[in-house]
Structures are given as C-alpha cells and as structure tokens.
C-alpha cells in the first residue's frame, strides 16, 4: 500500500501560539487512521494543515510522496484531497438534490453524482427533495459524505463525524467509511469519542497538546492509555 498522506515533524501555529509541535503521521491508500485526543489537542489543525488550508510553519507535508507545503488548497482538492469539516458544511437552505447538484463543478453529471450518493446512502434518496437543514444529524452527515465522495477523493479527512449523533447512527456511518477505505481511499478521521472509530481503524494516534503521544494498532493498551489521557492517570 502506498502512503498518500504523510506529516513529518510538522509544526503549525496561530500567530504566536504554536498548536502543532512536531507531528508525525502517515496514512496509506485503503487505510483508516484515527487521530484521537482531548479538546484543544490540535486535531482539527492537523486536518487543516493536511488539507493545505493552514500553513506549515516547519516540517514537511507530503501528499503522494511530494512535499506540497505552500500549495494552493484548491489544487490539492482538485487532485483528490477532501476535508469534511466539523459541522458537516451542507447548505441548509438547499434540498438534498441541490446540495448534490453543487458538486457538478467536479465535472461529473448530476445523474452520476446522485447515482453514487443514493446507492451508498439510500436514506438520502427518500429525502431527495427535502431541505438539508431539516434532515436529522445523521442524514446531514450522510449528505456531507456523499458530497465528499462526489469529488472522487484519494485522501478523505473527516472531522468529528460522530458529533451530536446517536451511537447507532455513528456505527453505521463508520461502516460506510470503512467501505470507502476498502476501495483504496486513504482515510484520516479526527475524533474526540474514540469508541466507534477504533472499531474500524487500522491505526490510531493520540494527539495531546500538539504532540503525538502514542500511535499504533488500536488495541486494549491504546484504549487504556486514552482513558488515562482523557480522565487523568490514576495516582
């Protein structure tokens, strides 16, 4: 499996505040990597850096083996980097169908986009004419994923997919994410609530205060360590 996304000793800052302090992370094609950590650890910033939206202060951002620090995020998106931000980013005043229609800028026809979206998420087909703002949280997340898939991503990044959703819905969504990865897409998932994503992740990394504290296969050791990091170590 080829590594599609790699961060090497990446540092990033907001003004004088350094948020990432030397992050090392890689995601290969077909792999799901979970980036976990408490609030304010720098998870979202890591995604923003990886998508080229936030500048790298030092270190290397490699996409497909090439250092792309300083590249235009639009070019990266066109090449196949897709970031689904926290809060889903759907157009609440437009119908499901119109939300999908917005993705025809990728050069695909409306029919093609709808075919792929409705095949993967049949619930959306039933609500095609419904205004997106009135969908349930899970359906809005499905729509966000469907819109992301319309870009034919090679690297898919998801920020807090489970935010505000029922556990059953989260499990189903992550099943879809695993299916997307099986088709060769490199998936990087940022999560605060680890349980659901660890079920499908091939690799997990724990980010604390801008540093990867631990990474490896999502085994029991990692879960225990996560609990300690979130709740504090027993003294």
């Amino acid at each position: 499996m080829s590594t599609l996304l790699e961060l090497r000793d990446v540092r990033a800052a907001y003004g004088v505040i350094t948020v990432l302090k030397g992050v090392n992370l890689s995601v290969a094609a077909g792999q799901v990597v979970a980036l976990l950590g408490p609030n304010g650890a720098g998870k979202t910033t890591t995604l923003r850096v990886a998508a080229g939206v936030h500048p790298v202060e030092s270190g290397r951002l490699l996409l497909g083996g090439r250092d792309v620090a300083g590249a235009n995020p639009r070019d990266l998106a066109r090449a196949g980097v897709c970031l689904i931000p926290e809060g889903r980013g759907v157009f609440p005043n437009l119908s499901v169908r119109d939300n999908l229609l917005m993705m025809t800028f990728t050069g695909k026809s409306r029919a093609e986009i709808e075919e792929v979206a409705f095949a993967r998420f049949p619930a959306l087909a039933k609500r095609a004419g419904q205004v997106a703002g009135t969908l349930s949280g899970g359906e809005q997340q499905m729509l966000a994923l469907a819109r992301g898939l319309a870009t034919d991503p090679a690297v898919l990044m998801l920020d807090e997919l489970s935010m505000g959703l029922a556990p059953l819905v989260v499990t189903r969504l992550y099943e879809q994410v695993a299916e997307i990865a099986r088709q060769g897409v490199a998936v990087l998932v940022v999560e605060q609530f680890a349980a659901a994503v660890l079920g499908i992740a091939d690799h997990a990394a724990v980010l604390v205060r801008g540093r990867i504290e631990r990474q490896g296969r999502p085994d029991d050791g990692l879960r225990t360590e996560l609990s300690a990091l979130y709740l504090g170590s027993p003294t």
Partner: protein
Amino acid sequence: MTSPEPRADRFVRELAELKIPDPAAGRAGLWLRLGVTLMAAGLILAGSAYFISHSTTDALVQRDALAAGLGGVAATVVGSAVFLRYSLTGFLRFWMARQSYDLAVLADRLLEKDLHHDLTSTDATPR
C-alpha cells in the same frame, strides 16, 4: 483493453504534475511595498528638510536639514530602484507570457494556412 489507472496512482501522478508557487514569490510583493514606502518617505523627508532649512537662519539647523534632505533623496533613489526592479520583474514576466502566447497563436495560424494551401494545391493538380 487497458485497465483504468488506480485512484492512488492517479493522485500521485497529478500531485507530481502540480505546480506549487515558490514561497519567494510572496516576498516580491513585500519588496515592492518597501520600495514604494522608501520612495514616499524619502520625498517627504527631502521636502520637510527644504522647508526646515528655509525657516531658520541658524547654520547648524540648516546643515542638519541639508543632511536629512540628502538622506531623503538617497532613500527615494534606493526606493525607486527597488520598486522598478520588482515591478519590472512582474511586468516582464507577464510580457514574456504574452509573447509566448502570441507566438503560439501565430504558429497555429501559419500551420493552418500551410495546411489549407497544401489541400488547395493538391486539388489543383491535373489528373
């Protein structure tokens, strides 16, 4: 029939072809602004020095004003040079791109003309 290129391979290829702007290009804008600032500041300094030297009979103040005025002129000259250097680079880059586009259009037009000429001359040959 050839199999379609895997998505990951296409991604790697497209990124390899991607043109990433040189971070130094951003610095050109900074130099340009610095040039304009120096030019303006130099002019203001020279103008102020002129009025200071004329508003006093004290030879020491006049000498200071003279020195400040010369400094202002020097700053204007340096600022103009920096401004010209970086604005001309931008202009010449655009001009070169324009030239190469015009040449490409001209070449296409000439090739079309040649092709048309060949076709008509073939038709005109006796059989």
